[in-house]
């Protein structure tokens, strides 16, 4: 697990989790998570529902007490602090706007230590920040989904938290609004320099927002890295599948050899892929993870038949049947739309360095 690594040159981590564990009943919802987060970083916890990401976020916010482990913020142990004493704020998935208060009342809620004038000025600034000038007197239930999301953001930023926690920040928005909001959120973060921890089940959201992503499964962080690294170099078939469409071709690992690639024997012939971690013994059962867009159709390589061709606007998706009946998915540029129609006998190949060998 590479969870405790911090990007080089970042000094003392802003947030450090050590062995954080939370049990509900018999099972562990979060199981010994280690994590370090730098200043000015956007970190995304990615995983399906039930993987423990929300529980982890709630422990950082202080709504749940870990059964074991420590949570440090800027070096100080905050594990036992109640939520209202933590310099951390959260944007809730439902936004949790107080229905009995105005927009300004919501945004001002965390600013009770300020005087009246200072508070009003701060609310004004925050509403301008989220482009909601003039909305202060409105009630939350008169706002659109996007506007509510921005009120929730302004409210969470009001106390200038050292760390902002965002629970599925965009899931409640429709698709067009979501992409726009993602860019805005990222721009805002760069401007403010606040660190974000974002919880999401949507890999695209993680890719758009995050500097680094921690993939969670079964209460553990199974891989941490930049999204490109996770995409190209997943540590497991679970991570490979979570971050996008992938062909997982079962096979047997060939003998050790020098050089950057290794052979894998599959049901439809020998393949070459990037050499795996040395822990995998020759002869081990493995899968070759091959992204559809890396499959090259041409004159050389393995024989296959095109069984399906779908035009998707910006690209063409094809299903290919290999000699033994295995099917692979390939996607290519839409410019060659007329090429390789259904029924065409073709040959396919791929560069060894774009395919990963993973434990089966």
């Amino acid at each position, binding site marked *: 697990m590479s969870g405790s690594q911090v990007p080089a040159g970042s000094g003392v981590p802003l947030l450090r989790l050590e062995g954080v564990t939370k049990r509900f009943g018999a099972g562990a919802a979060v199981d010994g998570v280690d994590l370090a987060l730098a200043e000015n970083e956007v970190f995304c916890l990615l995983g399906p529902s039930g993987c423990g990401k929300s529980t982890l976020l709630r422990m950082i916010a202080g*709504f*749940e*007490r870990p059964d074991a482990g420590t949570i440090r913020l800027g070096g100080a142990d905050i594990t036992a602090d109640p*939520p209202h004493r933590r310099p951390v704020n959260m944007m809730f998935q439902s936004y949790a706007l107080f229905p009995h208060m105005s927009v300004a009342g919501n945004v001002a809620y965390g600013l009770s230590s300020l005087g009246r004038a200072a508070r009003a000025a701060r609310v004004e600034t925050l509403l301008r920040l989220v482009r909601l000038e003039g909305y202060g007197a409105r009630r939350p239930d008169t706002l659109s989904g996007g506007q509510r999301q921005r009120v929730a953001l302004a409210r969470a930023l009001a106390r200038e938290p050292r760390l902002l926690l965002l629970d599925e920040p965009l899931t409640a928005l429709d698709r067009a609004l979501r992409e726009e909001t993602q860019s805005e959120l990222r721009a805002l973060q760069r401007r403010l320099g606040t660190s974000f921890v974002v919880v999401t089940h949507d890999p695209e959201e993680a890719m758009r927002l995050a500097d680094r992503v921690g993939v969670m499964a079964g209460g553990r962080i199974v891989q941490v890295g930049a999204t490109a690294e996770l995409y190209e170099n997943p540590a497991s078939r679970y991570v490979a599948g979570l971050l996008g469409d992938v062909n997982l071709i079962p096979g047997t690992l060939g003998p050790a050899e020098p050089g950057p690639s290794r052979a894998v024997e599959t049901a439809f012939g020998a393949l070459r892929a990037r050499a795996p971690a040395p822990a995998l013994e020759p002869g081990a059962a493995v899968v070759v993870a091959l992204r559809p867009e890396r499959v090259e159709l041409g004159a050389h390589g393995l024989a296959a038949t095109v069984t399906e061709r779908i035009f998707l606007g910006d690209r063409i998706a094809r299903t290919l049947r290999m000699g033994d009946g295995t099917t692979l998915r390939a996607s290519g540029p839409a410019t060659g739309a007329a090429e390789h129609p259904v029924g065409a006998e073709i040959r396919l190949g791929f560069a060894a360095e774009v395919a990963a060998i993973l434990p089966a």
Partner: protein
Amino acid sequence: MSGRGGQGWRARLVRLPPLLWLSAFFLVPFAITLKISLSDAATAMPPYLPVLDWHGSLEGWSSFLEALDFENYAVLWFDSLYREAALSSLAYAGTASAVLALLGTPLAYALARAPARAQALLVALVVVPFWTSFLVRVYAWIAILKPEGLLNAALLRLGVVGQPLEILNTPAAVLIGLVYAYLPFMVLPLYAVMSRLDPALREAAADLGAGPVRVFLTVTLPLAAPGIAAGALLCFIPMVGEFVIPDLLGGSDTLMLGRVLWSEFFSNRDWPLASAVAVLLLLIVIGPVVLFRDAGERGEGER
């Protein structure tokens, strides 16, 4: 917050006042009632013996205990009046519960199927009579059911009957009163169950070829059955001990435990016997009350 549970001093401070109050004024009185039901009536104030001498020694206690007996319960057992009152209370409450289930189910179903915009208003219309002056609502029926009352006037004018029907001061009047007074009590929990049923289930049944009657009988009714049973139970308990309805509508011959208790207490001033009747009534309703409490507990635990 969710992990805090109910153990802190703050939580204790919240639940202590209602616990103490209800123990003192609901639980303790039952114990006293039980004790007095074992005493004998006396022409004194309070009108029962023995009265525990608080300053007495152990001797005072033992003579106090010796003076307690089951005489009142023997009276209840051997005097047919009380046995009949108990049986007829059960019969009235049981019959009324069945009629309520029969009338309340379609009404609750109609409420649940009413247009969403009108539903809140319609439910409020059903609720209002429930909270509205029980005594007044029962009183209103006297004028309707009397021999020269409005119902008979209407029936005579329509030629349905040749001479006024004797309804007031009969078991029928008691049943009408029970059903009328408790109908909202029946409909509300039933409506709550029926409005929670997924409309897609009815639509699926209709889509598969079931007519409205078959949809109701094969989908809605089985799913709402626990609600119907709960509603009937909810009405049964207070009806068994009902006083106002048999007293005002049933006439002097109506035997129901609530009325018997009342007259033992107010007319005969036999507090110990009234207490024994109360204990008997309590024994009849305790089972349903526990069931009801557990249903409430489940409701509390829904979150």
